[in-house]
């Protein structure tokens, strides 16, 4: 049994089919990359899996259980957490409280006993992404890179079984990209299963073993980074048609 099974997922916005009959599986412990040109439907696919949008047809199974069309907070509590492409911090709250919100959901209430308070857990997560010094700063005072990391801390605080990262490297400078690559590697070693959407192929290809390529909502290729890089269709999509 796969951890996540996506079958024939379709989503239409009026006449536009944003995600068209996409199927793929994610196994436990692996990092999967999801790439494709702008408007390929990557973020829509994430929104469908995480319950922010409801698919028109198709199913999403998580740990063998059908989670298609469930409300997003229910899906989170089942163990799928995500980050957003455009950062969505709670600007009025200090960094630590941003992470604490995650620690207060039903899933974490079960996991956190009196031995570990939500505050402690939140602080640990901030330490993991290197934001300890910023713990009491309001999120509105944090830089873009810090907020990106805060977003990841928030998602990780849910101790997810599957983590969906939507363009984690966007807007980051090379040093921050390096730092994040390292932390994703560490997360992978800790046994986290991840799906990463990314435009910066260079950073992504170093991380993943398997890549899924979307184009106009359809899956056009799947395989190891090397295989995909040689795939004719993929080359056409990225480089233009060979005449």
């Amino acid at each position, binding site marked *: 049994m796969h951890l996540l099974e996506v079958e024939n997922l379709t989503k239409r916005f009026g006449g536009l089919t944003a995600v068209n009959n996409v199927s793929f599986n994610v196994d436990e412990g692996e990092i999967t990359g999801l790439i494709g040109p702008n408007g390929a439907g990557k973020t829509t696919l994430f929104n469908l899996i995480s319950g*922010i949008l409801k698919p028109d047809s198709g199913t999403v199974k998580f740990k063998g259980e059908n989670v298609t069309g469930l409300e997003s*907070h229910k899906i989170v509590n089942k163990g799928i957490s995500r980050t957003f492409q455009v950062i969505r911090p*709670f600007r009025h709250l200090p960094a630590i409280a941003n992470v604490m*919100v995650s620690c207060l959901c039903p899933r974490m209430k079960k996991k956190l006993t009196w031995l570990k308070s939500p505050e402690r857990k939140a602080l640990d997560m901030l330490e993991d992404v290197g934001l300890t010094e910023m713990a009491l700063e309001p999120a509105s005072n944090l830089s873009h890179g810090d907020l990106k990391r805060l977003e990841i801390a928030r998602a990780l605080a849910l101790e997810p079984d599957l983590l969906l990262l939507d363009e984690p490297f966007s807007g980051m400078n090379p040093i921050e990209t390096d730092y994040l690559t390292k932390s994703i590697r560490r997360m992978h070693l800790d046994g986290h299963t991840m799906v990463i959407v990314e435009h910066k192929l260079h950073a992504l290809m170093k991380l993943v073993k398997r890549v899924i390529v979307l184009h106009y909502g359809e899956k056009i290729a799947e395989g190891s980074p090397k295989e995909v890089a040689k795939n004719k269709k993929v080359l056409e999509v990225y480089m233009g048609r060979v005449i």
Partner: protein
Amino acid sequence: MTEMVTSLLRRAYSSFASHIFDVPARLLAFLLFLLFLVMPLTNPGYFIYTGEGYYILGILVVANIYAIYAASWDILAGRTGQLSLGHALFYGIGAYTVAILYKFYALPLWVTIPIGILVSVSVALLVGFPCLRVKGPYLSLVTLAFPLILTGIFFMFKDVTGGELGISSLPAIIPVPPYTINQQRLAAFYFSSLLLAVSSVILYKIANSKIGIIFVSMLDDEVASKASGINTTKYKLLAFAISALFASLAGAFAASYESSVGISMLALTMSFYPVIMTILGGIGTIYGPIIGAFILTILDRYVLKVVVSDALAHTHIIERAEDLAPWHMIIYTSVVIIFVLAWPRGVTRFVVDKLEDLEEARELEEIKKKKK
């Protein structure tokens, strides 16, 4: 035994001191409240025997009621971002429940007030459901409609609600006979001050608790809040319920204090009062609306109606003190506009920021001295 009591008292005092005295803004608020409480005692003759003292006490009781009412709006609007423009619904339900239960069953206040709160909270949960389907200005519009709907229903059942006349001659708060009306009003003043103190502490505690953090997360970004696994529907309803609880407490107390209820308790102005008070005082702070309620109630009922009118009449700018009445609303709203322009984030935020700056400067001085 006595040792235990003294140690307990000492611990209670030290926890109180660390909560209140170490934060300058809280200390200031505490001192103001203390001053407020002892004020009637500084001149008992004036407050217990004169008509003017009676009038001033009345204004302060109303200010207390509005303060609870405005703070209840703030936890809903300022903390979760649900800008309700129909808060009079809860205030009115609290008041009318007390009145109707007294009119038909002659139940005492300590029974009717909790029932009023219960009814109001249940209505809040009912009303909450359609409200949760809409966001932003649409939510405000939907909430705006509810008190109007209730007004219509009240007019349909005139024999129960009294229609436009309302229900009057309700029992007073302290119903023991030998007291004079001044003494009763003094009792109402202390009772309402107690209610305000308790409700504001509870609301402040909720706003700064883990639930409060979740509330603010919904205000900032609901989608992200859901992505953190929070059932936002549940917490929005909770915010509605908490808010309705304190609004109806204010309404129920107002009904028994004024010993009458009327349809004006559901009027649009009644829904807008907490909004104006909260924005003037500082939205999202809980203490802001309380200060705002005091500023506006005293401005409205004392400064404009008594001080300014009398002064103008004395200097013969106007003939009689009542002649200022047509100008009343114009001056009142102008003052509100000036306040909001001068301190857009609220009067209290401005004061708190200033106090914190002073505290910071003082700490820096100390560090410098130590270095020397």
